[in-house]
């Protein structure tokens, strides 16, 4: 029948075309594949070693000026970049962005653009090209290829939309000879000159989980709210939290996917409150945290012990209600670092091969300070965006 005929045909066609490997851009896979095999088990996100390392890193005093956390690094291993040194500045820097599809990325993107302007004024960066993949891995692969093929990028900055899937594209970018800088989410290859990221998901998840364990009576109930499954940075947060809850006497009522939609969050919390007490809320990201809190208000229940994020709407709610809460931070200021790193690399300065930025939760203690600092910032802004010293501040972030 035609179905099968066409199937065979297309299958044959594929096989044939694959046989004719007259390649233009090679992917040398050995190291790619090895590392790939490593972390992406798919099913199990918990890697004991990474978990422990990140928890230690929280204690380590980072090198560099605390006033400029985006330039600090936790036990860096500096690499020589003289091979990439470029005479006369005016470099063309290309940035492949996964997306600006959530407030955290929007805030960071503004910060990066502000930083770029400064560097352009200093003449360190000439043209700054960016592309946005709207969270579509395939799109981003094309974007990166386009940069590589255009051949005018002196440095390529990549914020991968998904770790494993972008690996081949990043590899290809490295092979193009231009220095590659990866930040935020990683990739399964170490071919990038530097990989910039805060301590990481395990630490983030642990910060909140430990806070709940410390602040709740044994036997208390905790509801976990997650955005969506399958994104490594988020899965690590949950994996760490599970690890910690596992050793505690807290009862986990359930873990729900909310898509970060406030209405969804409020629905779910409301329904849990109908079924019984909820003493604590753990979230893998702060989006919609306020809606979760309101669910308690509307149900006339006492405030839970809350794990949010350094998103202002939550921190302001936290402040006015005076509830027990913590705001884990996935350092938004990391968006400044890549462009700075690019200029460093292009001027042959050393950079950490893995550039681990500090990542400290905001606690009761420093809540007021950060609210103070961001007094006139919009509600979906992130407290630790670290752009206060940039010329565009505050307008660039306030009226975007």
């Amino acid at each position: 029948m035609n179905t099968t005929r066409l199937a065979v045909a297309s299958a044959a066609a594929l096989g044939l075309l694959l046989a004719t490997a007259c390649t233009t851009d090679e992917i040398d896979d050995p190291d790619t594949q090895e590392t790939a095999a490593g972390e992406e088990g798919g099913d199990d996100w918990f890697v004991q070693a990474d978990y422990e390392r990140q928890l230690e890193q929280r204690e380590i005093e980072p090198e560099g000026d605390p006033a400029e956390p985006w330039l600090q690094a936790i036990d860096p291993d500096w690499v020589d970049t003289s091979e990439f040194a470029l005479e006369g500045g005016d470099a063309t820097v290309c940035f492949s962005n996964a997306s600006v599809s959530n407030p955290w990325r929007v805030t960071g993107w503004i910060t990066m653009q502000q930083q770029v302007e400064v560097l352009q004024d200093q003449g360190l960066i000439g043209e700054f090209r960016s592309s946005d993949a709207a969270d579509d891995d395939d799109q981003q692969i094309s974007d990166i290829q386009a940069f590589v093929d255009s051949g005018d990028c002196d440095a390529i900055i990549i914020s991968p939309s998904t770790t494993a899937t972008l690996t081949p594209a990043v590899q290809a970018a490295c092979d193009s000879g231009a220095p590659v800088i990866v930040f935020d989410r990683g990739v399964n290859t170490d071919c990038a000159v530097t990989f910039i990221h805060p301590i990481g998901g395990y630490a983030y998840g642990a910060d909140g989980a430990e806070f709940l364990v410390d602040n709740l009576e044994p036997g208390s109930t905790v509801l976990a709210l997650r955005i969506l499954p399958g994104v490594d940075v988020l899965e690590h947060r949950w994996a760490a939290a599970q690890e910690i809850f596992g050793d505690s006497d807290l009862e986990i009522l359930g873990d729900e996917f909310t898509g970060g939609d406030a209405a969804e969050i409020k629905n779910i919390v409301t329904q849990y409150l109908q079924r019984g007490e909820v003493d604590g809320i753990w979230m893998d990201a702060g989006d919609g945290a306020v809606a979760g809190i309101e669910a308690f208000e509307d149900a006339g229940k006492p405030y839970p012990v809350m794990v949010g994020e350094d998103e202002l709407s939550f921190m302001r709610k936290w402040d006015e209600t005076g509830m027990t809460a913590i705001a884990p931070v996935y350092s938004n200021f990391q968006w400044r670092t890549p462009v700075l790193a690019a200029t460093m690399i292009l001027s042959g300065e050393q950079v950490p091969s893995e550039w681990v930025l500090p990542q400290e939760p905001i606690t009761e203690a420093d809540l007021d300070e950060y609210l103070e600092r961001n007094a006139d910032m919009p509600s979906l802004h992130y407290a630790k965006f670290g752009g206060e010293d940039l010329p565009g501040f505050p307008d660039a972030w306030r009226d975007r």
Partner: protein
Amino acid sequence: MQRARSAAAALLGGGTGTVFALLAVIFAIVFAVNPGFFQAASLMAFLKQAAPLVILAAGQYFVIVSGNFDLSVGALVGAQVVIAARLIDGEEARTVPVIGVMLLFGIAVGLVNGLVTTVLKVQSFITTLGMLLVLYGAIRLWTGGAPTGSLSESFRVPGRMGIENVPLLGQVPWALLIMIACGAAAIWLMRTRFGRVLIATGDNDLAAELSGARVDTVRTAAFVLSGLSATIAGILIGGFAGVSAQVGEGMEFTVITAVVLGGVVLGGGQGLVVAAMAGALTIEALFTLFNQLALPASLRPSVQGAIIIAAVAYAARRRMRPAGQTATPS
């Protein structure tokens, strides 16, 4: 009275009967799992959160029964919430004027959808798909990617508050009352000349036109009603949960599913608005049921999909009548 009888007949016949049956079954199971759900408080909470979808369903019904689609409602709901937040920016005084602006915006979007579909003869699926993209992009362009500003307390009243200490019921949410009002309005509208012409248009637009119906006008009006319902839904959702970047995402599919679940036939001309709203209620009830059963979150889409297909297939069977003596091919 005859009309009453016909209504009863319609309710039981075809797809319409299915949805009420399904709704009953779901509630029965919920009750079995957790009788507590039927205490006034939790029931009210349920209706409060269901209200926006029910109102959207009513709006979508008008468009579908007139033979079109409106895929832009999800994006419109989101846009409305963001607009509200940005324009109100925490100022109580601005609440009412801004709501006025939102209503106008909703009407405008509906008008554009309607005119592009009727005058430019673009299939509504494409029109509203395009509108979805435009709204999504435009609203983010306007706010620089993420919502800014904040809602005023009074704006949040309809979606969040209610009439306190009503005997037996406790708090009666405004959202519930608004839902009932919209539902009643929709039912009344379908009994008016407009409604009759609308459904006839969806059934056979040529016959309607030759009978002097303003086919394009009623169809456009349907889109406007959908735009209005999206606005009201936006006000309720924004009020219920405040601003977030993801509000409304994917709602268009949920609401169309709800309407079809209510036995309304895609392509127009068949189905009751009551049933469409019941469909929305059913979907919300289904989500509640999942929660009550503590069904793993990741598994829920599968169950939802299966149930929807089953229900619609079942309804399709019931709707099938004999190809009677007078029936002729084509």
